């Protein structure tokens, strides 16, 4: 009883400490958000002949059709959220950097585009650095990487998957998972992490997401 009183009168939990509870909205009600970086990525891919594209998100049928039929991409689905979720549940996130070292079968300079979405938000520094190094290794000259970064480290209780609506819009869909802590990377950390690439475009959206497009010269 005393504890109830203390709780009532005590300090309210800080919103930044608790995970952002995300309830899956009904199908079709997910927000559609205009993307500034996505059209730039499409332009970069369209300039390549049969571009090879790496997608770090879960497979989405409409995205496959968009990239395959519209741009003639060869698409590789590398659903890293599955790995992250598995290691989060097992409490083995410390082995994630080693996993990233050996996970990708692609050769050096063999990929024209990488869709990172917001995956880097959920990684610790070591894992993020290894993944970034792998991306730089795999990316061809002229290739592009699209990545979203949060501006505040509010934890999430689920993930987001991004469905392409059209050339400039993405539907942010609920994707079940453990979620977890998110790290808000500084711009200079991003630049350092992707050593060898340049940040060609950076946009701050109204929802406080930074959309970055990184290119290899």
């Amino acid at each position, binding site marked *: 009883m005393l504890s109830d009183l203390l709780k009532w009168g005590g300090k309210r939990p800080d919103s930044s400490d608790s995970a952002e509870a995300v309830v899956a909205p009904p199908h079709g009600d997910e927000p559609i958000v205009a993307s500034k970086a996505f059209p730039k990525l499409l332009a970069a891919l369209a300039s390549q002949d049969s571009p090879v594209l790496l997608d770090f998100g879960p497979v989405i049928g409409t995205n496959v*059709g968009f990239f395959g039929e519209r741009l003639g991409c060869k698409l590789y*689905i590398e659903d890293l959220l599955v790995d992250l979720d598995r290691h989060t549940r097992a409490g083995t996130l410390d082995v994630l950097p080693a996993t990233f070292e050996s996970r990708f079968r692609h050769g050096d300079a063999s990929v024209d585009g990488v869709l990172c979405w917001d995956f880097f938000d959920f990684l610790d520094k070591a894992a993020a650095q290894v993944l970034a190094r792998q991306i730089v290794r795999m990316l061809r000259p002229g290739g592009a990487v699209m990545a979203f970064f949060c501006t505040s480290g509010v934890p999430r209780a689920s993930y987001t998957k991004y469905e392409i609506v*059209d050339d400039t819009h993405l539907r942010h869909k609920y994707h079940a998972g453990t979620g977890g802590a998110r790290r808000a990377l500084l711009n200079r950390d991003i630049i350092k992490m992707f050593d060898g690439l340049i940040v060609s475009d950076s946009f701050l959206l109204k929802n406080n997401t930074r959309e970055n497009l990184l290119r290899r010269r």
Partner: protein
Amino acid sequence: MWKRDEAVKPNTPAGTGPEPAPSAGVPPAAQAVRTSPATANDPQRGVERSAVNIGKSVVIKGELNGSEDLTIEGQVEGKIELRQNVLTIGPNGRIKAQIFAKAVIILGEVTGNVTATEKVDIRDNGSVDGDIAAPRVAIAEGAHFRGSIDMQRTGGKPGEKPGDHKAEAKSAQSGQPAGAAAAQPTGQPAGTPAGASR
């Protein structure tokens, strides 16, 4: 009285004719059935042909060739080749094989590369670990996929035209500046092009 009526009534819908009696030697697990000429997923609509089911208890190791539509509910390891026909992996199907077919519909689990000259369709709860090569690929929400998807390489005859969109993409990639796909990302207003492509 009621029982006598049921026994007289045929099970098949009107117009398809009487179903042939199953032969005594064919086990129920792997039997040929006559399909309706207008099923929803039938690319050869209007053409009456037979389909074969491989039942849940059947395990096949080796090479599977044929010229009939096939539904697999059992396990197959090796290679499946139905170049002119539709292959359906049922919800209970477990395949560890390379697949070549005209169209592949996946409701079960496939480990191996899938090549189709028309379409690969991974339905809800279907799972593919492998590379897909087909001019059209449909993946339902809830399906699992890990591998690559190549919609350029048809895996069939070299002269085949898989679809208009692919032709557009090819013309754009050939370096023509007026190519629709190449011009769309930078200049087109939101909404129209992608909607048209799906």
